[in-house]
């Protein structure tokens, strides 16, 4: 019965952690990052002895404007033997931006490990539409998760939405993730010390349905006071990530909404923090701790955790060295051509943006918007006398940059300015 009750707990948060938030910031350069963490970790949940272990966690992440691939796995050394701990592999692919919107698909495989008796695997996939600007974005998504060897009878339908913004060195994210799935519940299930009531009696199993290992559970439940319970729960989560050359800090907090058969009181709120302080360019001291909510579809209870250790990080592709998509490279072409006496026609091809502005000595450094002439065509006629002129361009109200295709100079204000030579 205990086994059944544990498997009948509701909701999940890992999908939200894996599929929302972290991906939201648009990648501006290709980057390969490898990390190896070594240190002590401890975790505990109600009804179990706290597990303390030495953890070795290698991981990598490759990100480009079109895709992100990452994997991470923990090896735990507890009772003098190695054990596979939390592990995850994720793959995301993105379409090019079109009018600021891109489509994203994500697939994840993950394993969560609390202790020898509480562990679980899951596959999930999600599609999203993401509207992005340079410093903010909003996304909506929908997907499905397939937990293995647990009490969720059906797949888990996941709907998510969220916003993100950058404020200085910090990235703020907020997400709402809704989970809908069917699980097996019991009339005598105690939720927060009071009995829950089944609304729909469970019929005897008629065929092979549900995830692997579920048929036996359904058969066992059919002889008791069991029912199929349709669970819905919603997670509201906020994350702040702050990156500085000396360290990284991630704060996460959330609130879960749902009826009491799906959400235990110990999973209504959660909060955690992770910090890394760089000792050298490649070695950092890391520490973290907090509370994670229960993951009902995976049969995992809420737990507290803490860790401290050292991280070795290495970037085989140096950060920022491979330019893939910067504001300048969004500009597919930029041309200046004579258009009559003392007039020049500026044309640019820039797809997926809302506004393009230029300024220069010929506009007295007042920003002037270009006029959209097609899906990615922008144009403006400007009076420009023959000679040397300086020009800047900006996209969607972002930074002023030197337009590509013309020589540039430092502007004296921590930026660059393009130099045009207009022939008579």
């Amino acid at each position, binding site marked *: 019965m205990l086994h059944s009750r544990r498997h009948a707990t509701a909701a999940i948060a890992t999908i939200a952690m894996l599929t929302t938030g972290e991906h939201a910031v648009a990648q501006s350069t290709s980057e390969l990052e490898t990390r190896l963490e070594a240190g002590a970790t401890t975790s505990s949940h109600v009804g179990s002895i706290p597990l303390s272990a030495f953890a070795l966690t290698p991981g990598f992440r490759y990100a480009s404007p079109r895709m992100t691939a990452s994997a991470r796995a923990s090896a735990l050394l507890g009772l003098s033997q190695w054990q596979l701990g939390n592990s995850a592999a994720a793959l995301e692919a993105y379409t090019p931006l079109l009018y600021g919107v891109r489509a994203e698909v994500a697939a994840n495989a993950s394993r969560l490990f609390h202790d020898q008796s509480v562990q679980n695997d899951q596959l999930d996939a999600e599609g999203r539409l993401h509207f992005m600007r340079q410093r903010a974005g909003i996304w909506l998504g929908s997907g499905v998760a397939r937990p293995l060897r647990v009490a969720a009878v059906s797949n888990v339908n996941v709907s998510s939405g969220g916003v993100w913004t950058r404020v200085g060195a910090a990235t703020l994210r907020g997400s709402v993730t809704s989970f809908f799935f069917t699980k097996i519940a019991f009339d005598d299930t105690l939720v927060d010390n009071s009995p829950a009531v089944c609304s729909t009696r469970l019929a005897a199993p008629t065929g092979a349905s549900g995830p692997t290992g579920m048929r036996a559970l359904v058969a066992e439940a059919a002889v008791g006071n069991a029912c199929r319970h349709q669970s819905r729960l919603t997670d509201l989560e906020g994350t702040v990530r702050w990156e500085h050359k000396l360290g990284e800090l991630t704060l996460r907090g959330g609130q879960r909404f749902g009826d009491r058969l799906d959400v235990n009181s110990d999973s209504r709120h959660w909060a955690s923090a992770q910090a890394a302080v760089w000792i050298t360019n490649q070695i950092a001291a890391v520490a973290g701790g907090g509370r994670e909510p229960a993951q009902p579809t995976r049969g995992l209870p809420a737990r507290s955790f803490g860790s401290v250790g050292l991280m070795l990080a290495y970037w085989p592709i140096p950060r920022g060295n491979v330019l893939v998509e910067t504001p300048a490279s969004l500009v597919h072409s930029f041309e200046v051509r004579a258009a009559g006496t003392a007039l020049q026609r500026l044309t640019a091809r820039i797809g997926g943006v809302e506004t393009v502005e230029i300024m220069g000595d010929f506009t007295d450094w007042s920003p002037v918007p270009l006029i959209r002439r097609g899906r990615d065509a922008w144009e403006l006629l400007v009076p420009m006398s023959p000679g040397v002129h300086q020009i800047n361009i900006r996209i969607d109200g972002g930074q002023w940059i030197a337009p590509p295709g013309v*020589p540039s100079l430092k502007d004296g204000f921590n930026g*660059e300015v393009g*130099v045009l030579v207009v022939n008579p």
Partner: protein
Amino acid sequence: MSALSLRRVAWSASLVALPVVVGAQDSVVPNRGIDPLSRLNESTRYSIELLFDSAKVAGLPTWPLESKALEGITKRADGRRIVAAVRLVFRSLREARSALGPGATNDELTAAAGALSVGITTDELARLVKSRHEKQLTYPLVVLSDLITRGVPRDTASQTIFQLWQRGASDDDFQGLWRGVERDIVSGTDPGVALLNRAREIPSRGPPTAPPASGARPERSENPNP
């Protein structure tokens, strides 16, 4: 409302909208009605006006200084940084004038000031002037400044541009060189190596010759936006 009235309203609306649409297609003319430096605080403005006066006394154009100040205002730089940037332009123009001599055009002065600001010396400028043969130095200097900004070692850039200039490279040659080097740098080639490789592709054209009289560039007016 009758169909006739609706049509009248539509016509009136289109007549009102037409100048707006035509205006949107029209060229951009800067509005100089309001003193643009009025956005500066008093002490910053005073320092900048002193630099304007110094430029006038030295016979230098003041519009590059004014332009730099306006650029700083729009880019929301603080007053001290704007004054520093304008002062750098003034000094560079003054040094450029002494290196290029009184016969230099305003465009050449501006381009030379840019080259000085990235580390080219007055001696190197003077060396280019000696072999100019009445040809405009503007484009080679613009390319030289850009190459140094992109990471080509100063000496390599200066030496290579000087050699090409002596070999009679044209503005088109310099433009082609710049495009090639830019492409190579983006592809990951070392900037210095990229420049040397691309420079080898430019054929020798003999010593620089003066452009035909019809192509001579007029002296630039004080105000770039008359």
